[in-house]
């Protein structure tokens, strides 16, 4: 049955070997008062072909990105995945292994994660990185925990240019743990320096800024950083959910961030309706003992040949050793996605990353210019942007979306959902996966609405 190899006859023999008569005897430790004396109310078992048919019909009820042209970003980005990535990532020795507790037979995963940690350092310019976190939002929370230290108390200042979902998650954790979050306004699509100056003081533990921010705008991080670091103990956290930007924009190290977090799912992993995702966290060396989650380190064999090898290390920070005093509760993370991102980054390479970013930048700007030329459509901000931009619409975003769907186009994100002042504004994203023809098709469809 299913994936249980032993037949009922074999199982009966095993039971008798144990001196038991039946499966019922085996369940004796579970008191009768809590036994479920009826079958679970679930649909009946399906054979493989039946299950396939069922699930393919469910999948067919969705319009996948293969069937439409999408201009959605808003935290989740469409970047082409070279075939080499899934072919290697899905090798079953990676897929079916657990967290590498026995390093001698887990060198493959450990080395791949060491390479991942290195590449995250290369992207961010920072000193150290961990083996992954659940997603960008929880990575931001973990960075805040690092800044707050063991007590978990204090005030953090975050820009409203940070993804509203990330801020909602941070707020949820803040309420439970008992730290304060102060949000500061944006102006012309970027964090208001005046609001930042007014909000921070000696008691500010950390300041978090997203680069590029949720509106796609490029923050003047070089102007922000000295304000944040006016109080020497304030930790500057940068958030990046569109990693292609690392190919062109100043790295977190170059603008003096202390901790960099964000989302790397779009590098080599399917979007999969938003999860599993791939949170990353990189930091300056001095945060080493405060790092959350798994860390892989390089070492050598104990004796003999002294070959190079890799192990999980600095585990005294972690829940299985430190328990209630651990730096984080994370145990299972997102390793397989980290492997995907590592292979993707190797395939892209040094030049490729820069090319990717350049393509995204120019295509988005082309689209923004074309859309802005349409009557009734206007850019909301004049700040520089990367591959997303905000447009004021002549109609409601939901009506516009309905219209676009007739052409198999998925438009941008309705910003009014999170920013009441941006009702009837849409956030469009254009990555390297959109061709000029795709963009022109969008513009033509928008034109009909304008008319």
């Amino acid at each position: 049955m299913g994936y249980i190899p032993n037949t009922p006859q074999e199982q009966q023999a095993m039971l008798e070997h144990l001196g038991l008569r039946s499966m019922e005897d085996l369940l004796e430790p579970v008191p009768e008062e809590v036994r479920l004396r009826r079958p679970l109310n679930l649909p009946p078992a399906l054979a493989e072909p039946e299950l396939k048919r069922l699930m393919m019909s469910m999948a067919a009820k969705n319009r996948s990105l293969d069937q439409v042209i999408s201009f959605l970003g808003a935290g989740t980005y469409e970047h082409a995945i070279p075939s080499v990535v899934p072919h290697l990532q899905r090798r079953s020795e990676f897929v079916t292994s657990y967290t590498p507790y026995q390093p001698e037979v887990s060198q493959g995963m450990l080395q791949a994660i060491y390479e991942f940690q290195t590449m995250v350092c290369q992207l961010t310019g920072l000193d150290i990185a961990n083996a992954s976190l659940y997603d960008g939002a929880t990575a931001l929370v973990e960075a805040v925990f690092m800044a707050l230290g063991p007590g978990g108390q204090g005030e953090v200042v975050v820009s409203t240019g940070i993804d509203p979902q990330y801020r909602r998650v941070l707020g949820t954790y803040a309420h439970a743990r008992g730290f304060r979050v102060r949000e500061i306004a944006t102006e012309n699509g970027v964090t208001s320096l005046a609001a930042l100056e007014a909000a921070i003081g000696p008691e500010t533990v950390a300041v978090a800024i997203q680069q590029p921010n949720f509106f796609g705008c490029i923050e003047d991080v070089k102007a922000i950083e000295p304000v944040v670091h006016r109080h020497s103990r304030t930790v500057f956290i940068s958030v990046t959910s569109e990693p292609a930007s690392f190919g062109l924009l100043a790295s977190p190290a170059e603008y003096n961030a202390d901790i960099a977090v964000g989302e790397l799912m779009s590098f080599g992993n399917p979007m999969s309706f938003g999860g599993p995702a791939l949170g990353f966290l990189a930091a300056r060396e001095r945060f080493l003992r405060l790092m959350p989650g798994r860390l892989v380190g390089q070492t050598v064999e104990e004796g003999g040949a002294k070959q190079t090898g890799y192990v999980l290390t600095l585990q005294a920070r972690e829940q299985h050793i430190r328990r209630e005093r651990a730096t984080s509760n994370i145990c299972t993370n997102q390793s397989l996605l980290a492997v995907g991102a590592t292979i993707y980054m190797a395939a892209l390479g040094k030049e490729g990353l820069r090319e990717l970013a350049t393509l995204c930048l120019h295509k988005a700007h082309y689209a923004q210019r074309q859309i802005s030329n349409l009557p009734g459509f206007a850019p909301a901000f004049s700040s520089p942007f990367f591959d997303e931009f905000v447009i004021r619409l002549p109609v409601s975003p939901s009506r516009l979306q309905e219209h676009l769907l007739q052409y198999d186009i998925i438009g941008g994100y309705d910003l009014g959902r999170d920013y009441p002042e941006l009702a009837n504004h849409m956030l469009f994203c254009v990555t390297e996966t959109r061709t000029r023809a795709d963009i022109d098709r969008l513009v033509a469809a928008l034109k009909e609405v304008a008319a």
Partner: protein
Amino acid sequence: MSVEPLIFEKGAPGRRAATLPALDVPAEPLENLVPPHLLRQEPAPLPEVSEIEIVRHYTHLSQRNFGVDTGFYPLGSCTMKYNPKLNEDMAALPGFAALHPLQPESTVQGAIQLQYELEQYLAEIAGMARVTLQPSAGAHGELTGLMLIKAYHEHRGEGHRNLVLIPDNAHGTNPASATLAGYRAVEIKTDPATGGLDMDRLRSLLESQGKQVAAIMLTNPNTLGIFDRNAVEIARLVHEAGGQLYYDGANANAVLGITRPGDMGFDVVHFNLHKTCSTPHGGGGPGAGPIGVKEHLVPFLPGPLPAKDEQGNYYWADPGPLSIGKVRANTGNFGVLVRAYAYIRTYGPDGLLRVAQSAILNANYLRHELASDYEIAFPQVRLCQHEFVATAQRQKQESGVTANDIAKRLLDFGMYAPTIYFPLIVHEALMIEPTETETRETLDYFVKVMRQIAHEARTNPEIVKTAPHTTPVGRLDQALAARRPNLRWRPGQERTHGLGQP
């Protein structure tokens, strides 16, 4: 034995693999688009390698990794059962894998439907009113559950409750989650007679500090593989004191269709779908840690929640004003949920019961067979559940062979090791969980090898103490790794030691 150099030690300047399309739109000069001071000065020094180098490198790495597909993986508490290939194919269907989380609801009806139905299946399995699929792993579910409990107490004007009771055999994530939820963890000892919770200690704690108790977190069967027969009584006592009951569902493989946390009196339960529902663990993740709650906690669930209207259309419903908020971006580890859905539909109600029974049978079979050569923790408990704890205490005493040595020696025989030194309350613990997907022959082979190792420990302990002997690397210097942390490659770093292919 050979090493595999790092990807950074391969390639040559100018080499590359992935190709990108040429720019097909008119471009403005870069400096018109991005202020120069915000441009990157130093390019990220990613590797410069060709596709063939990448393929060989990561193929070699995969060959240096052991998974369930390689061999027996009796890692206790981790439920390393077979991961069906069919479920991998289903999750990779473009209709599931190529969906943006913010697509209009009309374009993702199948995806919301799948989550709507999965929520109901999990609620039925757990005996709970509703489930949120949002948490990304077990520990995330724990934290979310404690946040719900906190919101519930606060709503009732009992926000002063600040203690979470946790047995000493609990997983480390339990106390760590309690801290992150703003609680103080209080440890309760295990009753040496039963292997269950020390009831006297619980009673006295509730008597003296009951008004401070927010919750108790229990794993049942616990990490000793023992079913705590006092579960209902514990629930009664804790509820009487005004506390809530959290069920760590990491061991749910033992209870499918046999009993339900909800029926035992628990208020919140998390699932580890990457254990119980066979979604692959991916070398450390991803997982999914949905939590189920009783009716009184439903208003506090994070949102959004999948819903269905009268016309049969699926949509995301906002959770209401009492919701704790959100514990991650988007709605959950959907790709994992697709696999779990396929798993539950494959087995159906009778099949899931059979899963649990078979897992328990395999564990008891191993426990019985190993008892002659190894001490078993809590031998007075006649039957274990889906796992049990053996120990290397006898071997340690007789010849200095430790649980770690035995774990390493197992690797030489093409098997993974049990979980060792956990639970913390058993010295030299070897926590063994065979799962239901192993044949009797595999179990017999494991027994044979374990007996041989016991024999070696008596006659030739050195071979055990210096194991493994056949793996790509020998024992690694953990102390050095921690003393001089090297967490990333840097240019100019000493090259990988050993003989390795280019």
